């Protein structure tokens, strides 16, 4: 049994002095009913300050209040800087059943987006990098054919392809309008002054079709795989002109790549 020396000042650097609790080895049952002075704590002058500049003494506020309070700190992983390798802080190598004690629905919050319950979560294996997404964003570049300036979009801020489509629409409407204003030839178009929606990105019915580049470098149509699989795989997005898509499907044309220069044609025909 590891001997633990209880009690006594073990002040270490800036640590507060220990409360003088029951010394080690004593059989507490022999003790009288609290005559001994365990209240060394009251005599300690602990420095109680918030670590924030100009912070008020929070303790003073607490003392005025008597309501019961609750502190439930679920987890306390140790930062790597505390001289422990990340290995130490990892869960035990063989998974312990029922540990850590959290409800199952919380275990997959970080990576699951809203999808049908029957779709298996891709977060079963803690070794996968997907679990590290956690609170991290998933910003990818998106370019629109004919638009020299691209945007960035946070895929994780959306939970479906429809939302992505609306978001893309929003991202580029302004740019398109600005581009139209720059080009006198376009100003007299029947669109008038209103911004037009970009539609049909996902079903091929619009002027543009959304494609993406996955982590293997392949270019794929957006919409084939379940949403969160797409979010994990997509590295870049592109709004390809639908006409270019059909021509690229003929054997002789090169495949559209993300590195090809943007189209020179400034005319963007928008679907009304």
């Amino acid at each position, binding site marked *: 049994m590891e001997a633990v020396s*209880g009690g006594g000042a073990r002040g270490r650097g800036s640590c*507060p002095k220990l409360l003088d609790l*029951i010394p080690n080895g004593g059989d507490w049952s022999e003790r009288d009913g609290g005559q001994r002075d365990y209240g060394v704590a009251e005599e300690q002058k602990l420095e109680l300050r918030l670590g924030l500049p100009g912070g008020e003494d*929070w303790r003073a506020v607490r003392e005025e209040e008597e*309501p019961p309070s609750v502190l439930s700190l679920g987890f306390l992983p140790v930062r790597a800087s505390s001289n422990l390798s990340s290995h130490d802080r990892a869960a035990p190598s063989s998974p312990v059943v029922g540990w850590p*004690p959290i409800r199952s629905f919380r275990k997959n919050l970080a990576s699951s987006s809203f999808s049908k319950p029957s779709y298996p979560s891709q977060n079963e294996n803690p070794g996968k990098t997907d679990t*590290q997404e956690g609170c991290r964003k998933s910003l990818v570049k998106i370019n629109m054919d004919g638009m020299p300036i691209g945007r960035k979009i946070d895929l994780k801020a959306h939970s479906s392809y429809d*939302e992505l489509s609306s978001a893309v629409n929003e991202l580029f409407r302004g740019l398109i309008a600005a581009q139209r204003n720059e080009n006198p030839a376009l100003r007299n178009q029947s669109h008038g002054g209103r911004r037009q929606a970009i539609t049909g990105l996902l079903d091929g019915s619009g002027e543009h079709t959304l494609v993406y580049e996955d982590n293997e470098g392949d270019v794929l149509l957006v919409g084939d795989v379940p949403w969160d699989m797409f979010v994990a795989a997509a590295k870049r997005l592109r709004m390809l002109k639908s006409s270019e898509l059909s021509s690229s499907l003929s054997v002789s044309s090169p495949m559209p790549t993300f590195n090809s220069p943007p189209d020179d044609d400034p005319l963007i025909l928008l679907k009304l």
Partner: protein
Amino acid sequence: MARFPRLRSLTLKGKPHFADFNLVPHDWGGYARPWIEALARGCPELEELRLKRMVITDECLELLARSFPNFRALFLVSCDGFSTDGLAAIATHCRHLRELDLHENEVDDRGEWLSCFPESSTSLVSLNFACLKGEVNAAALERLVARCTNLRSLWMNRSVSLEMLSRIVSKAPHLEDLGTGSYVHDPHSESYHNLINAFLNCKSIKSLSGFWDVAPRCLPAVYPICSQLAYLNLSYAATIQADDLINMIGHCTKLQKLWVLDCIGDKGLAVVASRCKQLEELRVFPSDPFGHGTIDSVTEEGLVSISSGCPGSTRCSLITIAKNCPNFVRFRLCILSPKKPDPLTHRPLDEGFGAIVQSCRGLRRLSVSGLLTDQVFLYIGKYAKKLEMLSVAFAGDSDKGMLYLLNGCRSLRKLEIRDCPFGDAALLKGVGRYEAMRSLWMSSCEVTLRGCQALAAMAPRLNVEIMHEEEEDAGGISCGGGLDDAQRVEKMYLYRTLAGPRSDAPSNLFTL
């Protein structure tokens, strides 16, 4: 039930707490059926039923809905066994339903139920369906909210879009508790604009929850109500980053209860400490419980900033919390790696928890973790006189630890222990205590079948149940069938009873 024919309200709790963490067999028991059938026969005036960790079927819910003309309130917490069909029955038949609160249940999605509230039904005051996984009928929900003018609490599920939220909130400006659905939309959209206006009208909201799938740029809509909030639950919001959290919480000066994910980080907790002066409850959940994540999560520093003190040592942090927060009623700390010592000193955390119990004399619930010896139990037994519930895992060195607890904690009602070296001697010495307690759970300890049998023999008013996963002979345990006397019992759960062994136990569970 025959003794209480005028019964109006009943609360039942079924499975042991560790069922939440998959430590209890699925078919353990806790069936609501016999209770509801008995109530249906004998207590026609029933108005309210609260069930926790029980199994309830759709048939039971249907029976419930049809049997009590005055039925007003149903609370189901951590239950399972039913589907949205059962909810449809409740909605259809309970004419005077005021409260329907579904909290963290496992519910099968079989389709429509919200539209089953008749158009004439206007009595709802509180509706919580946050745990449901399926879609809800948006139009039905809107109509329901519009006609239930007394609705004060509404917690919706993930399927409810921000667009729906904005329509609903604008129809219910008197809400006091709100749980949003998915909080994702384009901040330039009309819906978002409407939501901003709707929130501006909500002067009564005191608690806010939900925020599944959050688009951080939509959070500012909520800022105007933040200053009214007493309770904020952001523990489902895995997509909010620390800075967005900090911005939001910075507005919440009246906050009393905060649930948040650990990506709030130490910096975030420092902000909480400085802005939320009235905070009484803080729960920090892991955003990445099994990963080796790169998230900057809460460490001792953050913990300490809640109470101020020295960084780097969990023990010091605990001591400082103890000093600064003597009013804590519940303290539950779970250190991810079992048996983890203090990172600074590499020593056990006995002194830290000892400080907590010595200082927080009103402590009623405690969970301990990390590297702990028998010493910590000595402290708990000596000081935690008001302690009612204690959870222990991977702690202690010998039977002495458990004996300190049983002898010292006179108010103890529920004791749950897993993976500790406590054995038969301690179990048997505590026999005088168990009838005064609600229950004792011990799993993966040193307790053997022989010890449990001896205990059962000494205490006829206890049900001593043991659960064993291994294959059993047909002879079963009472004949010493597959299990050797001296073999350790995997799981033991004992509780006082007036009714003797129960008949609804699964086949691998034996009452001695």
